[in-house]
């Protein structure tokens, strides 16, 4: 049984892609596709790692991350942020509020897997 990863992303195709490559790499993948209750879902499932999109319906990835960092249980949870908005100010913002890693779309599958392995030692 691999480590648990929760993918919070609203693009079905991207969910599909990430699920495929992570499953193949041995992760147990759960997905969630909106921002409203994303924080609850994280607390509920207590994954080992979260892949968080920035542009989500209901609540942005930044807000979700901020809330997670405020919560006792999720303060140190590794979070990999993905965004299609690849400007440096987005990266700065993400790092300031405590993203473990920040990657812009489109990403290379290998880069993602490598980042995950760094964040959660197997």
């Amino acid at each position: 049984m691999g480590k648990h990863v929760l993918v919070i992303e609203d693009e079905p195709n991207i969910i599909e892609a990430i699920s495929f490559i992570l499953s193949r790499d041995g992760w147990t993948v759960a997905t969630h596709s909106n921002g409203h209750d994303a924080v609850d879902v994280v607390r509920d499932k207590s994954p080992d790692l979260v892949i968080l999109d920035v542009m989500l319906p209901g609540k942005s990835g930044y807000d979700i991350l901020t809330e997670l960092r405020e919560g006792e249980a999720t303060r140190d949870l590794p979070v990999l942020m993905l965004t299609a908005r690849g400007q440096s100010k987005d990266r700065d913002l993400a790092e300031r509020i405590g993203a473990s890693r920040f990657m812009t779309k489109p990403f290379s599958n290998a880069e993602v897997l490598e980042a995950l392995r760094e964040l959660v030692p197997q």
Partner: protein
Amino acid sequence: MGTLNILIAVCLGYVALLFLVAFMAERAALRGRAKWLRSPFVYTLSLSIYCTAWTFYGAVGFAARSGLEFLTIYIGPTLVMIGWWWGLRKLVRIGRTQRITSIADLISSRYGKSPLLAVFVTLIAVIGTTPYIALQLQSVTLSFASFSANADEAGQLGDHDATALWIAAGLALFTVLFGTRNLDANERHHGVVMAIALEAVVKLFALVAVGIFVVWGIGGGLSATLDRIDASAIGTWQVPDGRWAALTLLSAAAFLTLPRMFQVLVVENEDENHLRTASWAFPAYLMLMSLFVVPIAVVGLDLMPEGANPDQFVLTLPLSQGQEGLAMLSFLGGFSSATSMVIVAAIALSTMVSNHIVMPIWLRLAEGGAMISGDVRHVVLLARRLSIAGVLALGYLYYRFSGGGEALAAIGLISFAGVAQFLPALMGGIFWRGANRVGALAGLTVGFAIWAFTLFLPSFGPGVFLPETVFEAGLFGNSWLRPEALFGITGLDPLVHSVMWSMTLNTAVFILLSLLTFPQPLERLQGAQFVNVFQHTGNPQGWSGGVAQAEDLMVMAQRILGPVEAQSLFQRAATAQGLAGYLPDPTPEFLQMLEREMSGSVGAATAHAMVSQIMGRATVSVEDLLAVADETAQMMEHQSQLEAKSAELTRTARQLRAANDKLTQLSVQKDAFLSQISHELRTPMTSIRSFSEILRDAEELGQEQLTKYANIIHQEAIRLTRLLDDLLDLSVLENGQVNLNIQRGSLTALLDHATASTGVSGAGLRIHRRGLDLDVEMETDLDRLSQVFINLIANAKKYCDAPRPELTIRVAQRDNYLVVDFTDNGSGVPRDKQDLIFEKFARVSDQKAGGAGLGLAICREIMSRLGGAITYLPGQGGASFRVTLPMRMRQAAE
């Protein structure tokens, strides 16, 4: 008997002629064809109402009793006409500019439009004129009597009172008919004036005819008559100097102040230039009237039996010689004199009584009613008619109860002395700005009281109004208050005594109180208007030079124009005048220029008033002030305009702020544009890259997965292409580089096509079509319009969140425009987003619906290109978009 009947017939015929003349003149005036009515000679002849029956008959009597004293009655007006016609011109000018209707009106108007003064003057005028009217009635009655006495038909006419009554009634009728026919603003009576002019000719002709008859027919020629005069006592009678002066003054004063004279002189005046002619023609008329007075008197005294009334010589001399025709003419002359005087006096008095007594009372009684109904005209006419009847009734009653007789002979002068009391107030009013209401009122009161006490009441004789004791011991036993020896001064002629005291004290009190009291603002304004009437009407803007202080003007100009501009203006003017330095001579040209310059800043009236003040004419005229008031009104209007502007500015500011807010929002949006483009491009590319890597790296994929992932890559590539297409499309539309393909087509077909191509028929979204069933032909770019329709239908399909989504497409035609509404039954676009949805990437909902947020932006651009518009229609239940477009797109709009 026959004579008397003829006399009555002639009388009636003459009256009928007068009616006819008056009627024709009225008609001619009404048609504006009455050029001859406006002759200065008609005006001059109308002035001859000065010569009443008292003058016609009485002058001879006067001469027979007092010698040349009668001449004073002619000298006074002659002096006024010749020596003072410019003063009359001022009076006439004031009358015209102030729309004066009577002497009471003039005095009241001058002194702050005082109603009290108007009533007072009216009362004095009525009291002073009533005996005079009675005198006319008496003279006509006496002349009738003379005829009957001569024809030995005494008693045939019934008593004198009845004659007088009939005459009074007839005159009242005539006056009502022609004196109150209309209510002209200027109160002119063409018919009456014409009739009077005719009567003037008749009486002059009659008197001259009698005179010629007396001199050449009876007197035996000119030299014989002159000898006769030399032989008579008349030539040697000495007239006391005081009486000469007093009588001349009186007649001059009365000429101006008698209500009837004021009526013809001022109110009926058509053209002030007529005064030029009248200034010599009227004295000439008077001279002719007086030419034969002495001969007739002398011959009459010689030939008529002892005790014959010299007042009737004009009539009785021809009669005694058997000249009935001439006597008839003479009678008509006297009749003319009497009637013309009574008619005009009645008009003048009735105007005063109705305007200043009846109307104010009626208006007060009617309270708001009069104002509401607004029809005061008939009330005024009725008041005038009643007043005319009243005035004549008073005259008749006075005649009845004063007992007639000799006492009446002096009434003319008593009347003169009464109305002469108006003189100080009148003269002061038009020549002295310091004159004020209190002074006028007090002067009039004092003058009138003294006149009444020393002349009017005593004229009835002791015991009628004033007890005998008053004559002997004075009022309340005060010996200095004796009517004919006021303040203990005895030995004077009663008339001279009265005139001296009343006029002196009247004038003194008037001046003194005017100096001691302050006029009200309105009085000041009216005073300036009256006294300066020529300056304002004649040459309103002109400056006649004068000594002005250039430096003061400079100081003022600097204050208004600013130092730099004022100095350069003055310097330029000085240079133009060939002077060095900054101070030009205050020539009229310069002052006018200065006024013009200043009026640019402060308005013409204020500028004029300011320059006036510095020019030493501290007189700010009413017109000036009114103009200032006008400017104030203008300023208020400007202010309201400013307020409107301010409101507009506020509105603009609000709009700007709104625009700014929107811009800020748009700026955020634009700022996000790259970010958005990036996102929209990167998202499909993410899937493509990720899956292409999966496909590349993975060996263990099944066919199913292979196909699925390849499809995803394909989809996303298409999505990417569509996005790029949209961006390019929008860019082309925004830059206006789009080529439109205008075609004819039907709206229904277009909507059918749009519905079909969104693939919504049947499944999911239900579409209803409402409105125009007929197939509307239109001419536009059908493909582009279709693109808009498809977009709207697709949006409804994507975003309508109702459980059973429905879209209603409603078509309507407004003039040359088609209106197509697309309304769904979802939750609609939130209020705060409605303004933004047409902007690029402005997606309202968070859910991914496949679009890049460019659809509505493209629709907006398309509709704008097609000469129409697309707007969000709030309040329709769900999301509602209105597409409006012209039925026939004009290529020229491109």
